[in-house]
């Protein structure tokens, strides 16, 4: 029982972080019908920006609330900028071209960034994993069942940050004018333009938002796993993408549900078999969903317009 509960807690912890990344994938797919393969690697960049900032703060005496916030903020701002750049210069020129072209470009960017960061050159970190500084001193926050089950303080913070960001996004998308425009563009960008909506701008902001959320996730991952390395973006990113597909790609709440589910399933499979199977879980889950319900849990079966 205690094992089970612990797995639930850990699974939710991972799942809520996956959700932040999955949202970026699903929003971009919604507006552009493109799988942004580079999304996970943008997250990785954010983690390293956070790492660099954390090192700076560490030198100057340590981590208070303000410095932790600053780490998040810097990282998210940097990633928003990178997201904007990628959309503007790699994807926008290809918008009217066949989808395959943009997909290849996306993979190219992902490859260039993830393996670029593996190079030992200049500011590039190189292949060796680093340890993310302990910005939050780990302490159990709540223990249950005579200490068998622990809810850690950093997990609580992780939940708070993830849920807070998701709530913010939810508000933006469903309760603001701009969010309305985002949803319109996501459905049909040509018709949205007919209403005067500047679709390029909406798409750019969507990218920036998704990237910022991914950066937040990257920091949370770093706090959770401590070990960071340049290929973490591709790994975690792909799993988050799988989560988005499971929930129904393009569907915002679906991405969250899919991610939490994936986090839980992954945790349980690894907990009860062996950690060497971890990487296969996400894809196995994906193939199952694609076989049984390809539009995902919340997706609509869309007939292709002729």
């Amino acid at each position, binding site marked *: 029982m205690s094992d089970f509960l612990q797995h639930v807690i850990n699974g939710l912890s991972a799942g809520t972080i996956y959700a932040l990344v999955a949202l970026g994938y699903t929003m971009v797919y919604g507006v552009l019908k493109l799988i942004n393969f580079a999304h996970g690697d943008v997250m990785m960049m954010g983690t390293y920006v956070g790492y660099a900032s954390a090192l700076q703060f560490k030198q100057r005496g340590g981590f208070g609330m303000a410095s932790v916030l600053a780490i998040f903020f810097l990282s998210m701002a940097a990633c928003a900028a990178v997201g904007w750049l990628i959309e503007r210069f790699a994807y926008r020129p290809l918008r009217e071209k066949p989808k395959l072209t943009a997909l290849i470009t996306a993979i190219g960017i992902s490859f260039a960034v993830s393996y670029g960061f593996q190079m030992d050159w200049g500011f590039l970190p190189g292949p060796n994993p680093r340890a993310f500084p302990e910005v939050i001193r780990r302490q159990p926050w709540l223990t249950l069942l005579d200490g068998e089950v622990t809810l850690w303080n950093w997990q609580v913070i992780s939940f708070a940050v993830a849920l807070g960001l998701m709530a913010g996004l939810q508000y933006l998308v469903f309760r603001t004018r701009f969010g309305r425009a985002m949803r319109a563009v996501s*459905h049909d960008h040509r018709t949205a333009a*007919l*209403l005067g909506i500047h679709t390029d701008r909406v798409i750019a902001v969507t990218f920036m938002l998704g990237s910022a959320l991914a950066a937040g996730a990257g920091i949370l991952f770093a706090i959770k796993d401590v070990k960071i390395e340049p290929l973490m973006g591709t790994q975690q990113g792909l799993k988050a993408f799988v989560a988005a597909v499971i929930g129904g790609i393009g569907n915002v709440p679906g991405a969250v549900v899919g991610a939490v589910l994936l986090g839980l399933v992954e945790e349980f499979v690894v907990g009860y078999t062996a950690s060497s199977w971890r990487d296969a879980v996400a894809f196995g889950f994906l193939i199952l969903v694609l076989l049984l319900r390809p539009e995902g849990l919340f997706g609509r079966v869309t007939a292709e317009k002729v």
Partner: protein
Amino acid sequence: MSGVGSAGSERPAELLLECQGLHVAYGAIQAVRGVSLSVRKGEVVALIGRNGAGKTSLLRAVSGMLRPADGRITLEGKDITGMPSHLLVARGMAHAPEGRGIFPNLTVEENLGLGAWLRTDADGVAADEAWVLSLFPRLKERWAAAAGTLSGGEQQMLAISRALMSRPRLLLLDEPSLGLAPQVIQLIFRILADVNGKGVSILLVEQNAHLALNLAGHAYVLETGEVAMEGAGKALLQSEDVRRAYLGE
């Protein structure tokens, strides 16, 4: 191209929209070949013709959804050829596209709200919203419903209302009667006459030639991408050729 006698039915003087020698192509397929037409201020102009005659492509070129391969389009004297759609809305153009183009995942309220996307005068928007709801009270009843759950007729009402929310000077309408029940069609065309009465010029693409020609001050008949005939709406209604080809007589 033959002009049908327009004895007595003079067109308004002021030019609103003009297309000169417009060519629209999809790859190798020529949809519109050298069409010249105009919409005067306050007019209802109808474009009729069979399926595939190029009517929708023409409208899309005018509203910036497509780049014309050749030719010129001017709005109130200014060249707008190839201008992107969102800029044209600011210039007083609104387009209710083929298939209505409402956003099914948004509510009626949200769809309507988006129609006023560029407007900054909250009072004016509220007034227009009230006006539009007076034209189509049904929309008020379905206010919080997702637009995808509306019937075809309701969606068409929503599409037109949404287009009107930007307070356009020129309204482009693509096949408003498509798939609708006769009473609904009658209602919509009555409303269109009212709207035109308020000073909104209309460029109407319609398969239902009878309704279109009744409403239109001036009309063009498109055949395989070219203007085959033009003239006053009432005059074309009387024309032998038109009656045989498009009115089933």
